[in-house]
């Protein structure tokens, strides 16, 4: 079977399967989950049993149901953040590449300064001021992450702007918007798609980390990072409770990474290291 004209590798199929499964789980959480999101149905950290397939959490809620509902928040927030970040970053990046030196200088210098503060540190500073509602979380992360997208979009577009077909469009008298939309965007898409996967992974892990620090998605919503935090103490009793949500996070990113790896390998050519000697 082919996908977009290419045959996925077996690892890519595995990745695709994981992503599809997780997204289905997130969408149909209400139908699938055996218990509700926030109801205590057992004791603290019950062992896995037929009633509770993955046991219960620190206040006796069913771990599996929490994981299923958590998929919504955790994946949803990361996805919305990444989409937003790409909208901002790509537009600004293309504008910097096409719009002339002045616009490029202004945008690039702002981004340079923002990039000299580690993302997590910057996010912590802003969240300490605004507090972390889901809206501020998404907006903050999207704006910060868009600086990375900007970098790539600008680099890709700068390489395209020197192409003679773009010059031909300029010579024809086409406007900036037309050039960005019709000449640059279609050619920038392939590298941007794999970058989307990578940025999603990054944001996904980032949201999980923030939630783990207690600064991301706030209760009563179930989210995987927060679940690790809530159940962290179980580890010192030798109980695997925090590992389940952590594993879910890991599987999702592994899945996306496997697919991205495949997409990247489509375009890469063998290097000199593999010549026949």
């Amino acid at each position, binding site marked *: 079977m082919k996908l977009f004209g290419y045959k996925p590798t077996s690892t890519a199929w595995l990745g695709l399967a994981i992503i599809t499964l997780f997204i289905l789980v997130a969408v149909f959480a209400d139908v699938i989950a055996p218990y509700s999101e926030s109801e205590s149905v057992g004791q603290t950290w019950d062992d896995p049993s037929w009633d509770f397939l993955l046991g219960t959490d620190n206040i006796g809620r069913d771990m599996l149901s929490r994981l299923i509902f958590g998929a919504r928040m955790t994946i949803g927030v990361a996805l919305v953040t990444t989409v937003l970040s790409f909208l901002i970053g790509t537009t600004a990046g293309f504008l910097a590449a096409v719009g002339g030196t002045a616009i490029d200088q202004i945008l690039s210098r702002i981004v340079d300064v923002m990039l*000299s*503060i580690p993302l997590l*540190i910057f996010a912590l*500073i802003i*969240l*300490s001021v605004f507090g972390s509602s889901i809206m501020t979380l998404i907006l903050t992360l999207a704006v910060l992450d868009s600086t990375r997208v900007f970098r790539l979009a600008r680099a890709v577009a700068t390489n395209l702007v020197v192409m003679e077909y773009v010059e031909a469009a300029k010579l024809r008298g086409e406007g900036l918007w037309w050039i960005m939309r019709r000449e640059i965007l279609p050619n920038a898409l392939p590298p941007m798609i794999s970058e989307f996967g990578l940025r999603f992974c990054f944001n996904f892990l980032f949201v999980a980390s923030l939630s*783990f620090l207690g600064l991301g998605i706030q209760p009563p919503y179930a989210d995987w990072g927060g679940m690790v935090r809530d159940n962290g103490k179980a580890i010192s009793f030798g109980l695997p409770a925090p590992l389940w949500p952590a594993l879910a996070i890991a599987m999702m990113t592994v899945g996306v990474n496997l697919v991205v790896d495949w997409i990247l390998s489509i375009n890469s050519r063998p290097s*000199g290291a593999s010549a026949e000697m």
Partner: protein
Amino acid sequence: MLKTIAIRIVLGIITLWAVSVLIFAATEVLPGDVASAILGQGATPETLAVFRHELGLDRPAYVRYLEWFFNALHGDLGIAMTNKRVIVEVITPRFMNTLFLAGYAALIAVPTSVVLGIIAAINEGKFIDRFVNILSLMTISVPEFFIAYVLILYLAVQFEIFPSLSTVFPEMGFAEKIYTTALPAFTLTMLVMAHMLRMTRTSVLSIMSQPYIEMAFLKGLTRSQVIVRHALPNAAAPIISVIALNLAYLIVGVVVIEVVFVYPGVGQFMVDGVTKRDLPVVQACGLIFAGAFVGLNTVADVLAIMVNPRLRHPR
């Protein structure tokens, strides 16, 4: 070349200054009114006014910035809002601890991953390359606390080899410190190793597809001669930037790890500050992290300039 380096260093200093403005702006100017954000909606106008005066918020922002900036230059990072302690006194030993942990991890991670990355690159497509590739892909994909908890579960709880909490004291001996911080250091190592390894591999591979490498093979040199004499000298600059980038990444990774292992470093201090909304603490920690980040990048660029033959031997 000296001129290029000097320009780069000046640029680093300017960046640092711009970063300080940004940090200040983010914490002080953006919210409009920090006082009401902290005291909550129930605060009366009188208490708000008193609190604002106490924080110095009734003065213009640029005055407060200049005061903060010049104090910071003199090593005065202000006083914590919540417990009124002098921040510098609290932060200095913690900063040392963070540096210790980051340095510990870097010492293991940098040589291992650079060597493994080079090995993977020159064996492109072979078993060792694929193995390392998949393994590092897995490691990149898992969150830092997952690695931490797995290590705790197996190495601290089931087999009691290392302590699960890394509480260190200034009085501790060096060997004991190394032992106590083993788990967080391992976690950090795994975290940056995967990235560094993959990036090293990519930059060596891009060198390996250069025509002069083909020429070296056609000169009848052995594989190891080609790699040592022709590939590595040119891979030095990209590898240096890979290392710098990952050390910077390590500094950030430290934040979460410190929280997991309850390690008394700047990261944990900052997270505490954010939870309590203690702005001077957050500003101070932010400045320290950003300073280390900018410093590392500047050093990396300077080194990259120094190994560039075109700049070392101008026309």
